[in-house]
């Protein structure tokens, strides 16, 4: 437990830092506390410490928020939170200021006939939305409604419950523009959507397209650093030399979109040379011989011209893997190179799992682990009644049968808005209209909706398209449901309410969905408070809300992971599937073989592949309006496009020079960073910029949105956005 936990939810007198009175009678709400001190006429300068979870990215690291006289002052990272481990990243410090942003949404908004928004009351918003939802349900059925959400502790519960109460199965995450292809591909091979590489204890770990030092989770950075200090061989396969280079031994600057060829060729070497774990494969796999035959010709020499990596390097890497096994793996990645990027992303994910199986590394120290988790048990059905069972499958599951049902492909749902199959869409904590391929075309789909409702804290591009915008309070002003985090030792952790609600007409998500449900005639499923639900959930694992509020994060040491167990493969065959019937049925090969990306840049025609990727101070588009973070972007020109130095020389472009990037979809000016850190077939455009919402005064107009250059298309079978299936040309501005 954090040493700060001693002071959590207690009150420190003045600024002297000496512990004073403990909160009498357990928890006291911050509002109540303020009133109490007002009555007692306590001196100013009182400090309260509240545990929360950062909202700057999906890792949701824990920290203690210090509040002095109602204002957020310091953030002290939670030592007990498994992702934080006593640190939060640069985004976390900066993003805390969202609470005080002058661009916050403060009232429900309704689009007027002229396209502008007017502030309306909650009653009016809820009445009108409720009526429209009921009309859609009556006329087209609940299947005509869909929800898109980026999972947050409360949001993932309340959005699903709201939609299911209405009878709709159509609850989508942002996965199609994130990790849908990866998780779905993994599931075809190993029966689960994720695993964890034991980087720190490995002898060799290969990262494909993922950079722990740029898309930061503090615990991952620490693990990578320790791996490096322990002498592990860390290989970065990436068209761009990321900042993880500080703790890596080798950069393999692959041609983007060809990671699958590299994995297949390394597997070919292991099989051809007999270097794979034959006993492990015999005991755990089906379809191995079929795959071995299918990739028999896919040698390093075959892969070299495709990947741009010398055959000898591929051969060496494969051999090094064999020598390091089982304390070795290819790291699972996240969005990176194959979360949603290419036509072959799902197949790349599948091949990755098969390669790791050849190493026999599953659940081995230093290998690839399926760590433990804890989940909520059964709740009182009287108080928390189950929503009706829904017979219909989530829309898109027939067309994209390999897409995980827990994520779905919201791209297809949006496409169905165009055809009229989907009539009403809700968006919670999701900026789909900016973060997915071809925002202009996507906007034209969403324009056909009868009802579009966006719930957010600021005026995102998606909110700009909505009929109704409902203002949520910031993450610091709300308590959410307990967050269960799996890992070597699973924990449960809490986002508690740090600040009083700043704008009185904003509400937390639990109340927004309860009110929406009421307005739509399904309020009976929301007859409880978030505190009651949180407490009930925690009691199923032997804890209480009071205990979690006091501690911030609580571990389940009795559920700790241990090495060595043979995984239970949750595939249809109960084995690692080197061949998949489901893939074949979806129109893909039974075994993963080489599949070329949809487009390849033709250098002779002056084409480059446009790739995106995170920078350490931003998360997608949601942090770009934070002044302290955007100030860094502007000071260091982080919005610049990266181009390879020799390419720049050939085209006469200087560092900092202005170019125009263009393709058939879009053209826009951008300054360049001339660098040796990039594969010459690619141009890198950071994924955070090009905000087109004028109501985000800090973010608006800085840089380009990489998605404007990407056509709207969907990865066959898997349903991903194929966000890097595009090429652009470049010319000096003014030429």
């Amino acid at each position, binding site marked *: 437990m954090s040493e700060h936990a001693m002071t959590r939810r207690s009150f420190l007198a003045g600024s002297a830092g000496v512990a004073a009175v403990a909160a009498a009678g357990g928890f006291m709400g911050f509002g109540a506390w303020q009133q109490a001190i007002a009555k007692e006429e306590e001196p100013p300068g009182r400090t309260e410490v509240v545990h929360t979870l950062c909202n700057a990215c999906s890792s949701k690291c824990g920290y203690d928020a210090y509040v002095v006289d109602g204002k957020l002052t310091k953030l002290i990272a939670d030592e007990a939170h498994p992702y934080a481990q006593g640190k939060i990243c640069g985004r976390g410090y900066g993003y805390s200021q969202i609470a005080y942003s002058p661009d916050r949404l403060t009232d429900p908004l309704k689009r007027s006939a002229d396209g502008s928004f007017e502030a309306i009351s909650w009653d009016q918003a809820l009445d009108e939305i409720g009526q429209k939802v009921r009309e859609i349900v009556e006329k087209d059925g609940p299947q005509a409604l869909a929800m898109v959400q980026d999972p947050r502790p409360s949001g993932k519960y309340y959005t699903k419950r709201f939609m299911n109460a209405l009878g709709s199965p159509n609850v989508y995450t942002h996965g199609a523009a994130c990790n849908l292809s990866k998780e779905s591909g993994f599931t075809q091979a190993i029966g689960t959507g994720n695993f964890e590489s034991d980087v720190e204890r490995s002898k060799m770990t290969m990262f494909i397209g993922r950079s722990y*030092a740029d898309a930061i989770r503090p615990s991952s950075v620490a693990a990578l650093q320790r791996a490096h200090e322990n002498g592990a061989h860390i290989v970065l396969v990436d068209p761009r030399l990321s900042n993880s280079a500080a703790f890596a031994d080798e950069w393999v600057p692959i041609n983007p979109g060809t990671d699958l060829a590299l994995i297949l060729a390394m597997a070919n070497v292991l099989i051809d040379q007999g270097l794979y774990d034959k006993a492990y494969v015999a005991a755990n796999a089906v379809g191995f011989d079929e795959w071995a035959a299918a990739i028999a010709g896919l040698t390093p020499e075959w892969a070299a011209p495709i990947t741009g990596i010398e055959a000898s390097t591929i051969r060496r890497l494969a051999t090094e893997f064999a020598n390091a096994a089982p304390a070795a793996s290819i790291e699972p990645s996240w969005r990176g190179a194959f979360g949603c990027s290419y036509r072959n992303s799902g197949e790349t994910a599948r091949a990755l799992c098969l390669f790791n199986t050849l190493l026999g590394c599953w659940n081995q120290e230093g290998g690839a682990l399926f760590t433990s988790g804890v989940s909520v048990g059964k709740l009182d059905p009287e108080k928390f009644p189950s929503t009706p069972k829904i017979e219909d499958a989530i829309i898109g599951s027939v067309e994209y049968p390999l897409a995980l049902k827990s994520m779905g492909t919201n791209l297809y749902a949006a496409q169905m808005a165009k055809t009229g199959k989907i009539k009403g869409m809700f968006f919670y904590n999701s900026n789909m209209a900016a973060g997915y391929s071809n925002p202009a075309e996507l906007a034209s789909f969403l324009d056909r909706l009868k009802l579009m409702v966006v719930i957010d804290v600021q005026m995102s591009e998606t909110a700009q398209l909505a009929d109704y915008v409902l203002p949520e309070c910031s993450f610091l002003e709300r308590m959410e449901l307990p967050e269960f985090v799996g890992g070597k030792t699973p924990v449960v952790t809490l986002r508690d309410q740090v600040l009083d609600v700043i704008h009185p007409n904003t509400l937390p998500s639990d109340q927004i969905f309860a009110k929406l449900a009421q307005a739509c005639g399904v309020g009976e499923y929301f007859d409880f408070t978030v505190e009651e639900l949180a407490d009930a959930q925690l009691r199923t694992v032997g804890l209480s809300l009071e205990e979690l509020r006091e501690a911030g994060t609580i571990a389940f040491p009795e559920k700790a992971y241990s090495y060595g167990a043979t995984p239970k493969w949750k595939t249809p065959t109960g084995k690692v599937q080197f061949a998949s019937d489901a893939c074949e049925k979806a129109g893909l090969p039974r075994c993963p073989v080489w599949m070329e990306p949809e487009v390849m840049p033709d250098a002779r025609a002056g084409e480059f592949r446009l790739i995106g990727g995170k920078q350490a101070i931003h998360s997608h588009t949601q942090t770009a309006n934070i002044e302290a973070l955007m100030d860094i972007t502007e000071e260091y020109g982080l919005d610049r496009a990266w181009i390879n130095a020799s390419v720049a020389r050939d085209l006469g472009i200087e560092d900092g020079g202005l170019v125009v990037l263009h393709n058939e979809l879009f053209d826009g000016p951008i300054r360049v960073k001339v660098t040796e850190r990039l594969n010459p077939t690619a141009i890198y455009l950071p994924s955070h910029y090009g905000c087109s919402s004028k109501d985000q005064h800090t973010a608006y107009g800085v840089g380009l949105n990489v998605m404007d250059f990407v056509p709207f298309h969907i990865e066959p079978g898997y349903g991903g956005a194929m966000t890097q299936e595009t090429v652009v040309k470049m010319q000096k501005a003014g030429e």
Partner: protein
Amino acid sequence: MARYGMLINTKKCIGCYACRTACQRQNDLLPDEAFIRFEEREEGAYPNVAVEHVPLQCMHCEDAPCASVCPTGAAHMGADGIVSVDQGRCIGCLYCMAACPYQVRSRNSQTGAVDKCRFCTVSSHENGTKMCSCVDACLTDARIFGDLDDPNSEISKAIVKEHATPLKGDLTRAKVYYVR
């Protein structure tokens, strides 16, 4: 009396800016008030490239040009060797910003006064922070703060072991040491 200094190991720096945003947050600075700035260097040619991130901040020079040029005595060195700016005395003439060889001073856009790294460990033990915000926040423990006069302090030992030196040698007798 302790003689405070800092060590920054650029071999561990991933250029993530956490030190800068933590410094701003924990010290309640303005969004455009930066006490830490960064230089990035690439060496080599594709694909054999190395990258170095160098964070810079007030070096608390013993021979401090900012204090020498300050016409009001606002920029001064305290008994503990920490270079400070008395905000009330600063007239915003910006001489110190011109004089600082490391360009690590920042003008407060609201008050017009100049400010810079305060080695905040020394002043802000309370409310959770035990160490300079940047040291606390650094994800890779690339920073060490401590007493340069104590040969047994972590920083003194690290300076010897890692052959750390100030960025510009003896130029200003800086108290921030670098491992590069």
